[in-house]
């Protein structure tokens, strides 16, 4: 009789274990997206609670893609549809319209926003002859394309394009761009506060006819400067916001990508201060593209300062009251004028070099921030227009 009681207790324990034990299984952070694309809230809840990461792999028309969720950024988990479809309905047409060699059409399953600011990496089976990538959204009603984001492109050796999607409805196009193409499709802009800028520029005629005018930078006439000597900001680009007018809301978290590069120096070694050779990264990458968290109201400078500090990367700046902004003098011990008299640090956000200081650029979710070292006043990094030159 005692044996039977023991067996019954054992079975009862087994039953209880099946209820409570299985719920605490170790996290499987790499998952395949199901055929219908639906991933349950419980999965995201698990990622959130563990503070771990969630990787979701998918494949469409022989193109593989991968979502990366960070547990710390998941605020209100819910069921999500992670399906991405790669198609080619208008690819040739868009290639012709944008004069681009590499274009990939894609769409999200149901056009609904995916929460948690995940990044999406798309893996191609061939390299792209391009330096960066842009994301365009197609508007069927007006038959126009709107530049909605920039994306990171790496050829390792095949192309991998990584973006943080902001809009999800409709048809989208990943477009490979060379620096030369970018500088002709972008228009007036500026640089770090030290540069005086008469904003002028031209856009690519092939692109002009199709790219939505409200989003696309247009040619800016020489205009009156504001009290901080900033030229008129091209239409469609964010206006500067004075740091003292902004309240940072720490309860509202967003993500952006940040990178710091100085590869232009590698092409100008004859001008480079040889005493600085020990600090020059061999591949020109000081900080590879990474996803960073920022709070509502923070500026490009806030993010640069926090991230370089966290990564123990040297960064020196001086606050310039005349421009009401921090001016970045050196990063990773590479200073302005270390590679000739026209050298220094510039920043761009979503592929555009703002014509005002980094303390006045308030970030929004999904922005792509790139700090680049120029050896030729921006001309060598596609930002010649930033100092008032025609492309």
């Amino acid at each position, binding site marked *: *009789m005692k044996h*039977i*009681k023991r*067996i*019954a207790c054992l*079975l*009862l324990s*087994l*039953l209880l274990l*099946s*209820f409570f034990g*299985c719920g605490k299984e170790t*996290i499987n*952070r*790499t*998952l*395949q*997206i*199901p*055929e219908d694309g639906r*991933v*349950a809230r*419980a*999965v995201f809840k698990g990622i959130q609670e563990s503070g*771990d*990461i969630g*990787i*979701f*792999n998918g*494949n469409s028309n*022989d193109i*593989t893609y*991968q979502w*990366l969720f*960070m547990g710390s950024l998941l605020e209100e988990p819910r069921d999500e549809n992670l399906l991405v479809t790669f198609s080619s309905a208008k690819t040739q047409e868009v290639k012709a319209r944008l004069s681009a060699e590499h274009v990939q059409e894609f769409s999200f399953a149901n056009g609904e926003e995916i929460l948690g600011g995940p990044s999406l*990496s798309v*893996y191609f089976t061939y390299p792209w002859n391009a330096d960066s990538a842009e994301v365009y959204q197609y508007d069927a009603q007006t038959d126009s394309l709107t530049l909605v984001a920039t994306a990171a492109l*790496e050829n*390792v*050796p*095949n192309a*991998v394009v990584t973006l943080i999607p902001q809009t999800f409805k409709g048809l989208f196009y990943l477009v490979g761009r060379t620096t030369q193409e970018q500088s002709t499709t972008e228009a007036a802009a500026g640089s770090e506060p030290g540069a005086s800028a008469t904003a002028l520029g031209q856009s690519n005629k092939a692109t002009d006819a199709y790219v939505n005018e409200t989003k696309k930078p247009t040619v800016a006439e020489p205009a009156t400067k504001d009290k901080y000597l900033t030229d008129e900001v091209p239409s469609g680009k964010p206006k500067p916001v004075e740091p003292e007018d902004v309240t940072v809301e720490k309860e509202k978290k967003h993500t952006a990508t940040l990178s710091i590069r100085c590869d232009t120096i590698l092409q100008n070694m004859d001008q480079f201060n040889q005493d600085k050779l020990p600090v020059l*990264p*061999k*591949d020109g*990458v000081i*900080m*590879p593209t*990474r*996803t*960073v968290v920022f709070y509502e109201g923070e500026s490009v400078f806030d993010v640069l300062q926090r*991230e370089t500090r*966290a*990564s*123990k*990367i040297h960064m020196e700046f001086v606050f310039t009251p005349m421009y009401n902004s921090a001016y970045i003098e050196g990063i990773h011990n590479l200073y302005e004028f270390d590679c000739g008299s026209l050298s220094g640090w510039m920043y761009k956000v979503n592929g555009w070099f703002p014509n005002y200081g980094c303390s006045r650029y308030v970030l929004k979710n999904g922005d792509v921030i790139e700090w680049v070292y120029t050896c030729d006043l921006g001309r060598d990094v596609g930002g010649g227009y930033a100092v008032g030159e025609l492309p």
Partner: protein
Amino acid sequence: MDPIKSLRESAFLQNKRNRILLIAAGLLFAAIIIMMILLMGGATEKLFAPSLTLLSPAPVAVDNRDEINVDVLLSDLPDRVYPAASLSVRFDKNKLEFLGARQGTMMTLGDSTQEEVTYNIPIWKSDAAFANQTGELNTMYLDVTGGKFAYVREGFQKDEKDILLRLRFRLRDSAQVGEIYDITVTDAVIATIGGAETRTSLATAMRTLKAYSAKIVVQ
């Protein structure tokens, strides 16, 4: 007569021992059903066949210099004989150090006799020093007998014997908080004899094998 009442009053259930046994059987049955639901009714599907997936490790602390394992998971193995396999993977050599490959859980045929079939977990060969120079690691397994020690379906079992090998990495001192490193499959082949012609080999280049990359997140 009420059948429930008659069952309750039956001689079988009048015995206390039998009643306990019946309850225990019921509990066991319920436990089995619950476990089946939990195991089979997951929120996401298992990897569909055939695909090779590099499993991302947990985020790594920037000052952690322990070995980081990236498991190479195979989703399915069709019923053929695979005497050779190779894998090429790109990684950031400035941030990660490749330490070598370790045994997975998938088995090849072992030194079998007519009386007994044995299985073996092979060690894949790689040149870590060269991989760290180039940023691309190449690793392979070759059964030089042409089949005696080959991968076969019997050596594969989902969730138990499906790790082809494990790649071992370590963070370099240049790693920084917030960085994400892609570990990208550039080529993978699990080859049958003459499989290139018959398209029976599983190969990314032939599109008979899908490959998914991993990410290492530094925190």
